[in-house]
């Protein structure tokens, strides 16, 4: 029975590694300037974790194969080197790995969070509410009007709570249900939660950031490929959570200008 365990465990370990080794399941194509650093970190970690996984599982299988159900009265042996060898191995190999991953990983994190957006980045405000995203562009005056939660009136399309009657800046703000952005231009996304917690996740952009009610958060990124990509909510936000999505539409600068003009005329 011990040998059977060893065989089954070996098969499980190899079968688990197979889809990874053959790249059956990989991240979708990266369309951001920072994503490569995350992807590299992921694949380095995969190599190290994969080695540890296969090494440990196969060693477990081998020892169970060799040392199970032996004849009665067989004298047990102890591993030369004992616990000291194990402790040293853990500290040297895993410690090195921890330090390496810990230090290298900071690069990718820093690219997203420790750099300020460029002054000429295009500012867009995203609002998450049960169960839709809305986006706001500042319009010709390049200023966002203040929000008045008491003015929110979804029936009349006032999703953000703008007050154009009293705020001059609100009169040219452009509100859309789709996030259109120009390719190769940095976007500074200002995040606002209307009701409960939500999240902004675009797999291709390698961006995931929660919307937290009461907190002004922002992310910045540059998309490098035109196309349409899904934005999904990844923070459980209530009964329609599974259906809360929008689209990121990466356009050429020319198409974007056209799109924005069109949207401005629809307001």
């Amino acid at each position: 029975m011990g040998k059977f365990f060893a065989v089954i465990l070996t098969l499980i370990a190899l079968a688990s590694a197979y889809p990874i080794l053959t790249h059956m399941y990989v991240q979708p194509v990266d369309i951001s300037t920072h994503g490569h650093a995350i992807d590299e970190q992921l694949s380095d970690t995969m190599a190290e974790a994969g080695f540890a996984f296969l090494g440990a599982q196969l060693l477990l299988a081998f020892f169970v194969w060799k040392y199970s159900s032996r004849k009665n009265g067989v004298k047990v042996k102890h591993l030369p080197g004992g616990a000291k060898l194990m402790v040293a191995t853990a500290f040297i190999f895993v410690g090195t790995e921890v330090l390496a991953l810990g230090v290298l990983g900071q690069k990718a994190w820093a690219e997203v969070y420790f750099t300020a957006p460029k002054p000429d980045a295009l500012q867009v405000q995203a609002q998450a509410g049960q169960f839709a995203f809305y986006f706001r562009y500042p319009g010709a005056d390049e200023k966002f009007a203040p929000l008045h939660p008491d003015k929110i009136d979804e029936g009349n399309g006032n999703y953000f709570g703008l007050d154009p009657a009293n705020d001059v800046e609100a009169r040219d703000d452009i509100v859309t249900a789709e996030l259109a952005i120009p390719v190769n231009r940095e976007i500074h996304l200002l995040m606002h939660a209307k009701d409960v917690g939500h999240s902004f996740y675009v797999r291709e952009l390698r961006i995931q950031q929660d919307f937290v009610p009461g907190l002004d958060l922002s992310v910045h990124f540059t998309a490098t490929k035109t196309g349409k990509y899904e934005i999904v909510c990844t923070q459980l936000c209530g009964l329609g959570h599974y259906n809360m999505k929008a689209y990121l539409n990466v356009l050429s600068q020319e198409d974007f200008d056209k799109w924005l003009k069109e949207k401005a005329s629809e307001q």
Partner: protein
Amino acid sequence: MEEAVVPAAHVHAPPEGFIRKHVFSLDHKVIGKQYYGLGLVAVFIGMGLSWLMRFHLVWPTTKVPGLELLSSTGAPGGVITPEYYLSLLTMHGTLMVFFVLTNAPFAGFGNYFLPIQIGAEDMAFPRFNMMSFWITFCAFIVLILAFFIPDGPPISGWTAYAPLSAVGKDAGPGLAWGQSLWAMSIAIFCVGQLFGSLNFIATTLDLRAKGMTFMRMPICTWAWFITSAIGLLAFAVLLPACLLLLLDRMAGTSFFIPAGLVISDRLQNHAGGSPLLWQHLFWFFGHPEVYIAILPAIGIVSHVLITNMRKPMLSAKVLIYSMMSIGFLSWMVWGHHMFVSGMNPTSSLLFSFPTLTITIPATIITLIWLGSLYGANMQINAASLFALGFVSMFVSGGVSGFFLAQPSIDIYLHATYFVVGHFHMVMGVAAIFGIFSGTYFWFPKMSGRMMNETLGKLHFWITFIGTYCIFMPFHYLGLVGNVRRYSSFVDDFMAPLMPVHKFISIAAFVTGAAQFIFLYNLIHSRFRGKQASENPWNATSLEWSIPSPPPWDNFGGKHPVIYHDPYQYGVKGSKGDFVMQDSPEQV
């Protein structure tokens, strides 16, 4: 405080009558079985809920016959609605984490065996002990009530993130009384666990028999001791967090609710609170909770492995120190659940290092197990198979933690199925393998009868292969970006992943069905199993020196004296290749 000077005294009189013997019992063994039984009920309910979820994910419009009887609004005509899916998910997580993974390996086995393994007649505070179980039982009833109220159970997940959980019925179904019951249940649960943890600590410190020094305590006793210290601190934080949540919900306070929220077209009358405060308080408890589930399992599995290897661990001391290090580090890592939550990005780096560092003691423990297997005379039985399976799961679930400990990778993998795969393997399945291993190992002591080994092995094979078939693909789905907590995959990019989801669901049904083999074996063996001897596994620790099942005062009025370390295997003893802890013979 090397050893207790006063031997355990008679702490209570022998119980008389059915109620005092089996219901409101002061006997730690009965209380241990009650905790285990409650865990068993909870695990089957929790598993049933997971079946419904897996069914809904792949056949969202198909009827589940009879389900409309449980919830006519959640499953009209037997078809699960998306919001009911969220209720199922919330209740599944809550039941499993609190009432199974905390109850069975820690409170269940710990209550039964900790006093015996240190040579005590009972816990230090038997009345508190009884109270802690019945408080936990009340918490369970309060939680289950949520199924039967018109509004249904909450839909905010077992993490109950505010303000979704704090603002009440405006935020959605189940968030009125359902969510309040949830918060009450968890608060009550915390009280029970605090009493229990205090009792474990006092018992270990004060009631050890003569000769039972700290380093002569079995590894599982150590695990329960360390866990009780973690539990005392962790539940002491979750309890006030739940009370504050209740105040926000019922008394109009705003601990977790900021100003200006418009929910269901209504401007909420709250201001000044912080949703991140809930996340900090919750995860300050939540991460140590992972170790509350897994450390007892590590202890149980080490105990079972040593007995079946017929040799001691390379170093029990190193193993114990590693468990302590894990317990210590568990307090510094809660922020890794919050990398993308909007907390200060610098603190993410500070939380990442200790999280990665936990890998070191975890690796030491794994290597000690592996290194100890070298040259062993491994006995294969249901208990040892589950222990070996645990080692395998612990490794599989552990390596995926490497990814999630790094904030940069977490940007991509956070809230995907990768996370679900990771914690189910390392916290859920591994801990449950520990419970199974402990059950097959200790059942003879607890009931006086042996479990059926053939059924036990069959149960192991289906469960072992099945859990890999369920949870390994979760990681692949996560790598592709399949997000969690979605009741259906309507999105373009997730639709092509449906075949993988179907495979997982079928594996879940088969693996779940195999648990009925275990249940049958447990019940059948309790009444019809072969009579168990005092020491069927030729083990060395104190629980095997007394009759099976043990008398009410454990040692029949005697005060055991301890002469040896707990694991004298591979030696020449008068009874075979082992010497019992309380045997005066020289080794």
